[in-house]
């Protein structure tokens, strides 16, 4: 072997005898491995911000241009369901954070419980979302699929929403732009839901591994990094809730 690699750190060679089984060999220490994967997750979340950023840009521009249409569209969303979903996700972030703590403090049963609660709350979110989506489908507010502007041209034909907001009818050329609002609604919440589904899938996998004690023996990186991902998905939702559901809701 080339002997011009003069010195080596003794720590590396002696640590080799006692290195944890999860330490991958290209890392010098468990700290380095944990540090690197943590940094990688933060960087990945930054790419996600840029990914959603394009949608937020389109939203900002069109909301600025077509505010009345966005108001009318937003009034079609059920703020109770939306707020409930927001609470569900915030609660799931709490249970996820508790899960990370359990992993760090080697509480296997606690970890499984917390992950399972997070899983259930995630499913609850998706359930409520599908109820909302179903309502949109029934009212023909899905762009590209027999989209109907009736509720905006004649708000009184939609008694529930009218009773709450007493919106004035939109002119036809403004009503056309409600389709843009709903396109962005489905795109943004749909993209978010996709990330939720992926997260729930990984959660399922994690629950099985957690039961086997994989994360409570000192190797918590996976749970910690997944927690970051889950919190990120939660934060995106909070922005979506504010931007999509809360346009001009004051009395």
């Amino acid at each position, binding site marked *: 072997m080339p002997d011009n690699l003069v010195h080596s750190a003794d720590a590396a060679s002696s640590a080799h005898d006692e290195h944890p089984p999860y330490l991958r060999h290209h890392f010098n220490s468990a700290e380095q491995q944990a540090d690197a994967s943590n940094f990688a997750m933060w960087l990945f979340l930054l790419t996600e911000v840029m990914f959603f950023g394009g949608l937020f840009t389109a939203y900002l521009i069109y909301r600025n241009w*077509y505010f009345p249409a966005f108001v009318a569209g937003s009034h079609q969303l059920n703020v109770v369901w939306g707020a409930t979903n927001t609470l569900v996700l915030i609660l799931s972030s709490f249970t996820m954070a508790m899960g990370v703590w359990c992993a760090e403090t080697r509480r296997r049963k606690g970890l499984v419980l917390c992950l399972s609660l997070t899983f259930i709350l995630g499913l609850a979110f998706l359930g409520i979302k599908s109820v909302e989506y179903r309502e949109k489908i029934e009212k023909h507010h899905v762009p590209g699929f027999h989209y109907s502007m009736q509720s905006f041209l004649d708000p009184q034909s939609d008694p529930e929403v009218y009773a709450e907001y007493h919106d004035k009818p*939109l*002119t*036809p*050329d*403004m009503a*056309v732009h409600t389709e843009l609002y709903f396109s962005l609604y489905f795109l943004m919440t749909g993209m978010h839901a996709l990330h939720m589904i992926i997260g729930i899938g990984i959660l399922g996998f994690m629950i099985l591994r957690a039961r086997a004690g994989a994360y409570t023996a000192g190797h918590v990186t996976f749970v910690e990094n997944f927690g970051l991902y889950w919190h990120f998905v939660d934060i995106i939702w909070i922005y979506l809730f504010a931007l999509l559901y809360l346009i001009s809701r004051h009395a």
Partner: protein
Amino acid sequence: MSHISPVLWQFLVKWLTNSGLLPPEASKIAPQMDALLFFMVLVSLIGLTIVALLVTSFSILYNKKRHPVAVQVEGSTLLEATWTIIPLGLFLVMFVWGALIYFRVFTPPANAMNIYVVGKQWMWKAEHPGGQHEINSLHVPTGRAVQLTLISQDVFHSFSIPAFRVKREAIPGRYTTVWFEATKPGTYHLFCTQYCGTNHSQMIGDVVVLTPEGYKKWLAESTNGMSLAQNGERLFASLSCAACHNARPDARGPNLANVYGAKLTLATGGTVIADDAYLRESILNPSQHVTQGYQPIMPTYQGQISEEGVIALVEYIKNLDSDYRVQQTLTTTDLPPEKQVKTSPTATVPPAHGKVKP
């Protein structure tokens, strides 16, 4: 640019035009742009020569055979500063010079004569105010500022006249403008330069520059008797615009006489100058452009009217301030008069100002 020595200027223009590297200079802006291009080529040549000389001479002087031991030189802040500041300075000169030309090209003078151009797959349709229509060609006079108002009926196209050194995208959904003043009679290339599908390379034509007399003759030969504004007037009537836009005191829509160029206050509170884009948008998306004091009841004509139709309407409304247009009969061969610059913008459209037909 007129303060350059005329001898040098002549030489530059002649040399540049005959070098075969540039198209003929047929507009007022062309020599100005060529001067900047020439400057940039010069700077680039000098820069490239400097780098080439340095690299060559270092390669010879410090060839391994001649200079077997390298001297480790860390760097030199002075040199770094030099080759940061000098390129930056040169680039900034180009930036300013170029920005001046850019603003010049895209700020039409107030007295420019307007020609509408509609691009569609795969042809250019030019519409002169006198009603002359051209396909894949554009006739313009020398000595007169000509503004092109461009729009596309379908995809992005780009209207390019290399001899004039002007180019502008024609996009669907909004007007874009560019202007030039042709200086040399002749026939020059017209290209579409934004890839637009199968026959993109066939979307080419001729720009024919005529003397003012020649242009007058051409106008007379090519007219079909109806000016754009007269066409617009017919459309205005057939679409029942006058039902709301008339001079009556209880009219549901604002009177459109003199509205072009006026400063309007919108129902949303903002102010806007009623230019071509505003007029077009008011026809296609009226509820966002309602003048203060009026209800948003105007229906949209999106989908019911072609871009040529909109152009005709816009041209009609633009000319609702002049007796000349309204009393026009069949003499469409005269050039439209130089437009008076609006001196005092009106805050709201005044009612019943006179010359509008009921």
